[in-house]
């Protein structure tokens, strides 16, 4: 999908593999967790791209790789025209002013021993803006996110989860970035607080001209804030489409199954729904199925092509879909079947150590 050359972030065939090491005496490289396995996308200036998927799909890894917090194993990342894939720490530093991140766990994303003022002021100090105006800027930032100015001298443990996410937002906004990666920012919050934070983020996007990559597992939350949505499964994008279209007209079998699995707070609707139940567990990213990643659980799987040939991410009705038979699924030519459940025999998440830099 072309974005008219207005892309702030361009990703080309990104791969992020984490080595699995095992052995009695010496650790040998026995395989890789293919967390991200060929993701290409573009994020337009000013838009919100939602990135959704279940555990092990690689969405968080994509977000962190974009910020170069993980090193890409292959592929290209371009930020505002600059290829940042292989830049060193010193070259990245000035660019980091323009790309920031907010994290999922409000209890782990703030240093418990630093005061709020120090936390929010850190980006300013690191980039040389820590002069006399620092206190004033920090206070303004706190007010922007809806926190009282006297929070400056307090510590994270005095605040609730929702308040801590606001602090995280204030920190992310300190340098007036262009791009914000939001890694499941509301998943750990109570329902009534989630809405507060989502609304705040929408307002901030307007006020500060921000571009968002909104990573979440909750499709309902993502719908509210995103312009376009990409659905990921086992390290690849299965479908990419404008937000509302994804819900009104899902084309990929995984998207269809995912949508039908999400409960809706309305008993009448729930009763009338026919849900497509995916069977078995999510395959491990260390050992993904060959060819089409989804073929082991796909209710619409066909005897030809699905198990041998990896589908291309191709345009269809305004979406990008990675499926051989999407047209037939849409036309109702294939009836979904209940597949046999395959449960992974071994431990799901093999141990891996992400590289430090």
């Amino acid at each position, binding site marked *: 999908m072309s974005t008219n050359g207005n892309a702030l972030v361009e990703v080309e065939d990104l791969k992020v593999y984490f080595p699995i090491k095992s052995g009695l005496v010496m650790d040998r490289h026995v395989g890789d967790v293919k967390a991200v396995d060929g993701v290409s996308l573009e994020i337009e200036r000013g838009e919100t791209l939602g990135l959704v998927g279940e555990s092990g799909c690689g969405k968080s890894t994509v977000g962190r790789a974009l910020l170069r917090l993980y090193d890409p194993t292959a592929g290209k990342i371009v930020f505002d025209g600059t290829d940042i894939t292989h830049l060193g720490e010193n070259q990245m530093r000035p660019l980091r002013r323009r790309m920031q991140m907010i994290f999922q766990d409000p209890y782990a994303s703030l240093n418990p021993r630093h005061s709020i003022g120090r936390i929010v002021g850190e980006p300013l100090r690191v980039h040389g803006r820590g002069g006399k105006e620092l206190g004033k800027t920090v206070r303004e930032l706190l007010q922007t996110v809806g926190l009282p100015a006297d929070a400056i001298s307090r510590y994270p443990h005095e605040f609730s989860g929702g308040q801590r996410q606001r602090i995280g937002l204030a920190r992310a906004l300190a340098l007036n970035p262009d791009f914000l990666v939001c890694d499941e920012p509301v998943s750990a919050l109570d329902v009534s607080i989630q809405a507060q934070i989502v609304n705040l983020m929408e307002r901030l996007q307007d006020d500060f001209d921000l571009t968002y990559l909104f990573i979440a*597992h909750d*499709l309902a939350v993502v719908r509210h804030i995103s312009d376009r949505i990409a659905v990921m499964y086992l390290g690849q994008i299965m479908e990419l489409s404008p937000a509302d279209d994804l819900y009104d007209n899902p084309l990929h079998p995984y998207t269809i199954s995912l*949508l039908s699995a999400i409960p809706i707070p309305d008993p009448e*609707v729930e009763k009338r729904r026919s849900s497509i*139940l995916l*069977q078995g567990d999510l395959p491990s990213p260390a050992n993904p199925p060959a060819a089409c990643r989804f073929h082991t659980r796909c209710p619409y799987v066909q005897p030809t092509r699905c198990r041998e040939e990896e589908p291309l991410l191709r345009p269809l009705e305004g979406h990008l879909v990675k499926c051989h038979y999407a047209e037939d699924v849409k036309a109702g030519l294939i009836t979904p079947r209940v597949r046999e459940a395959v449960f992974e025999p071994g431990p799901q998440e093999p141990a891996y150590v992400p590289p430090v830099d």
Partner: protein
Amino acid sequence: MRTPLLTVEDLEVRFGTSRGLVYAVNGISFDIAPGETLGIVGESGCGKSVTSLALLGILARNGRVTGGTAMFGGRDLLKLKDEQLRLIRGREIAMVFQDPMTSLNPVLTIGKQLREPLQVHFGMDKSQADRRAVELLEQVGIPSAKQRLRDYPHQFSGGMRQRVMIAIALACEPKLLIADEPTTALDVTIQAQILELLKTLVSERDTALMLITHDLGVVAGMCERVNVMYAGMFMETGSAAALFSQPRHPYTLGLLQSVPRLDAGRRQKLMPIPGSPRNMLSPPGECPFAPRCRYEVEQSRQQVPPLEEIEPGHQVRCFNPVPADEWQRERLGGAA
């Protein structure tokens, strides 16, 4: 309406902490009939989990039941001694917990953990118990059940472990199954499987199900009756159909307004509930929701409203309940 299996009245639970007394549950009453599904929905800290732990006598050491009764099979659970409760736990009332990663003992095989309730409550020997265990695993949809008995929890995924937990809970055919956030830690597609499994098993056995969760969607799909809990009290109770189409309590309305839904109209505006959940270090002296409530009246700040029937089978704890059609009007208006 069948005779209730469990009747709880005015349950009160307090915790002693270094920061003072926490008033976790402040007078809740409910009952549940055989084969019925009751949902208790609320956010974190509202006291919903504490309720189930109190009923089974497995509160933390600093927790104490300070009032109320819980009649089950003619006896008050809250007054029973531990030896008597032990005969009930697992046998007549069973529980499924939230985190499948930690609720199974990592050093015991699945087989051992499945056999335990069978041996304790039915006196089965190992081979009898093993046969029954294989049956149970098959019923919860785990293939190659016989070999699986010898596996350890870490060899199972989250979804599978939850199935095992359900198998253990249903091993002795309990009359009441309490499920505390059984799918919160699971992926959405796995959640759908587990909920479907629970629904099937429970209706096959005519087991009563008390489902505790914060997820309104889950409750809508699983429960016949719903109690909405906030700050240790029920704010609204009634049938799921009534509560979701005509919520009368401002908190229930607020929850429905703030939850993003799949079937919402184009970019429906989320209406958050302002403020944060109530500090539970003091006993409620006013309506606990008043500080965050758009509909509060003077009386809300003076006393705790009583839980009153607003129409048959539908109760609300509010001095100024929301008009019956308010939610529908908003929904239709928002979809335009």
